[in-house]
């Protein structure tokens, strides 16, 4: 058994556990990703409410725990304890199946997300295609949810989302194909759909694809960035769940745990599509300037970033501790916040240790890039009004699709000429 575990670590470190055919490590990765994703969704819940609140001159959650840090936990408990309502006229089987489809697709795509050259459950030859395909299945969950509720608002939400997701997938696909074309511009002339391969191609060509054939890469990235917001039903394309029009859209009739599954799926889908954007255009796990700033000094500087980040977070936390009111009523909260800061500081310290900081590098840069996209999602939500359905279709078919096609052709031409 121990040999079996060690065999992956010692011999074939240069491939993912899935490729090495090592069940144990694949399982470890799956569990790690599942746990990390759950934590990320919980953190996103808190962060979104906080960031949005600060954009809107509010404080956001402040009551449950210091600075509302325990709010997601309270929400989760509330959702689990809530009554699970099944509308009397609903189709019970499909009503039960719909959230499962959504969650299943949202989590399955993560088996090909490369957090580092070897940090993925598996690397597929058709990684990007697999990811787009499986995430396109999530629309089935949305559509069946709307239909099974047997109610008018969810039905309209379902109709909207099916049309929206199918049309934006095309623009998304075209943008992806132009990035895949760029990956084939190496000596052998073989492109790849493997997500690890795509990042390695960027490493080999010494540029992120967003800067390749400027501005072609940038435009393709832009098309993808718009389409991915539409694909995940987020503002300003959140028509299937448009609150002011359809009350809650396709999940109007869902409550409690089933509703929380939709919530979970929405956020993990956001992370999933952001990870596609990061791998295709922003160099995946590569640290900034891997070729311009080389040498041991720079390696050291960049490897200190994870620790510094956590230390910075800890410093903010300790500053907040100092600012907590001195009244005895807040004593427990102050101690809790200090404890939270201490945990952050400990993690930061651990990340400074040389064996850890070298291994955590890739994951850190990947997560940082994805986090940037998450912030953008929240920012959009705070800034933009909602598109109308016909305008959404117009943007998808008449703006993004022609741009995507044009970029694809121009990329192909530039690939041949240069």
């Amino acid at each position, binding site marked *: 058994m121990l040999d079996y575990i060690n065999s992956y670590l010692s011999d074939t470190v240069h491939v993912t556990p899935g490729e090495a055919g090592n069940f144990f490590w694949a399982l470890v990765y799956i569990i790690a990703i599942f746990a990390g994703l759950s934590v990320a969704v919980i953190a996103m819940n808190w962060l979104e409410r906080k960031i949005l609140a600060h954009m*809107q*001159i509010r404080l956001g959650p402040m009551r449950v725990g210091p600075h509302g840090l325990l709010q997601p936990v309270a929400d989760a408990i509330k959702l689990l304890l809530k009554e699970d309502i099944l509308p009397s006229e609903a189709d019970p089987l499909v009503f039960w199946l719909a959230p499962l489809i959504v969650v299943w697709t949202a989590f399955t795509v993560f088996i090909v997300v490369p957090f580092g050259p070897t940090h993925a459950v598996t690397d597929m030859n058709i990684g990007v295609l697999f990811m787009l395909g499986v995430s396109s299945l999530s629309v089935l969950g949305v559509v069946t949810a709307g239909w099974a509720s047997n109610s008018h608002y969810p039905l309209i939400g379902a109709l909207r989302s099916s049309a929206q997701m199918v049309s934006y997938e095309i623009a998304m696909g075209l943008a992806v194909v132009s990035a895949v074309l760029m990956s084939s511009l190496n000596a052998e002339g073989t492109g790849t759909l493997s997500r690890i391969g795509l990042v390695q191609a960027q490493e080999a060509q010494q540029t992120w694809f967003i800067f390749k054939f400027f501005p072609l890469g940038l435009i393709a990235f832009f098309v993808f960035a718009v389409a991915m917001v539409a694909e995940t039903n987020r503002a300003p394309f959140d028509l299937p769940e448009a609150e002011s*029009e359809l009350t809650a859209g396709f999940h109007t009739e869902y409550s409690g745990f089933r509703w929380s599954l939709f919530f979970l799926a929405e956020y993990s889908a956001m992370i999933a599509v952001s990870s596609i954007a990061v791998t295709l255009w922003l160099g995946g796990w590569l640290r900034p300037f891997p070729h311009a700033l080389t040498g041991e000094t720079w390696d050291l500087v960049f490897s200190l970033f994870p620790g510094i980040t956590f230390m910075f977070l800890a410093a903010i936390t300790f500053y907040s501790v100092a600012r907590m009111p001195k009244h005895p009523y807040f004593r427990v909260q102050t101690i809790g916040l200090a404890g939270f800061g201490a945990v952050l500081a400990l993690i930061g310290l651990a990340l400074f240790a040389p064996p850890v900081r070298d291994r955590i590098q890739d994951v850190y840069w990947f997560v940082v890039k994805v986090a940037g996209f998450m912030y953008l999602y929240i920012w959009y939500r*705070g800034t933009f*009004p909602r*598109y*109308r359905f016909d305008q959404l279709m117009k943007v998808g078919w008449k703006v993004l699709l022609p741009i995507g096609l044009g970029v694809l052709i121009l990329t192909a031409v530039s690939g041949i000429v240069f």
Partner: protein
Amino acid sequence: MPDATKFLSHLELGETDQTFLDSNELIINMGPQHPATHGVLRVILKLDGEKVLGTECVIGYLHRGVEKIAEHRTYTMFNPYVDRMDYVAAVSNGLGYCEAVEKLMNVEAPPRANYIRVILTELNRLASHMLWLGTHALDIGAITPLFYTFRDREEILKIFEKYCGARLTTHAFRIGGCLYETYDGFEQDVTRFLKFVAPKIDEYEELLTTNRIWVERTKKVGYITADDCKALGVTGPVLRASGVQWDLRKAQPYAAYKEFDFDIPTGTNGDTYDRYLVRMQEMRQSLRIIDQAVGKIPEGPIMAKVPKVIKPAVGEIYHSIEAPKGELGYFIVSDGSTQPYRVRVRPPSFVNLQALDQMVRGQLVADVVAVIGTLDIVLGEVDR
């Protein structure tokens, strides 16, 4: 609950003989519990997919019988009730009622009272428009302006609170003038507010006016011509956005309005975007009026000579003012007793709501929400 189909007589439902592949029209109920109907408005929509084929408003969920109550109260006692109609523009409601009764009694409020009335009413117009802007933007999906406008509306409410002790249902005026003298520092407060709010209005405009999505969502949405407005009796910013320069503050000046210099902003297209621009301009014009008024509030009494027991002679009066939402009129019939024989209110929201059906026919579901927002209705006033 009343049967939905009862209200759909004019929607031409037609035969609904269903066959296997018949995608017949969808009838959905928007409200009375719905996030975007501004209270308890119920709109029954007949849809073909997303397209609106017809609407039917069902009102009365907030009916409190304000007009009937008036018949059992003295003129003075009824005064606070009018604040509860359009509760976001309570000062305007009070002004209309007080002036109507004054006109019925042939009393004139003293100039100082009129100046205070103008300042407070215009502040209230600002507050009302700010609330409209926030909720309208929220309906269209921009959630942030709501909090900005509520932050600034708060400053207005603070001035109200300092002046008369109440923030929302102010009951600021009395028949014959004002009850309260301005508090110390009233002028400074108002001037400070003017300085504070002018850049804030620019801030709202920065967020929305040139925002591509906002423009697409509002241009050519809820279009209504000037003739249709006149035919339906639509007034206020909705009428002005259709290009009619009609403002009761200029057309039949009341209070102290003829002493101030201000413009009537008008639109050309009569769509939601123009109504938005008109209201934004109106906010600036209100600032102009307040700026002129606050500097030269005349000295003198704030209350005209009004008998303790108000008992107008037999007669009737119709008096209307320009409330933030349009023409707010009071028709009061007096039988010579201490209680009005009949009070009829012409609420701008109620009359403007009539235009909803015409404005949304042939447009999409999302536009219904935008149009309800742009009509700026308050259900307390629609149902009374």
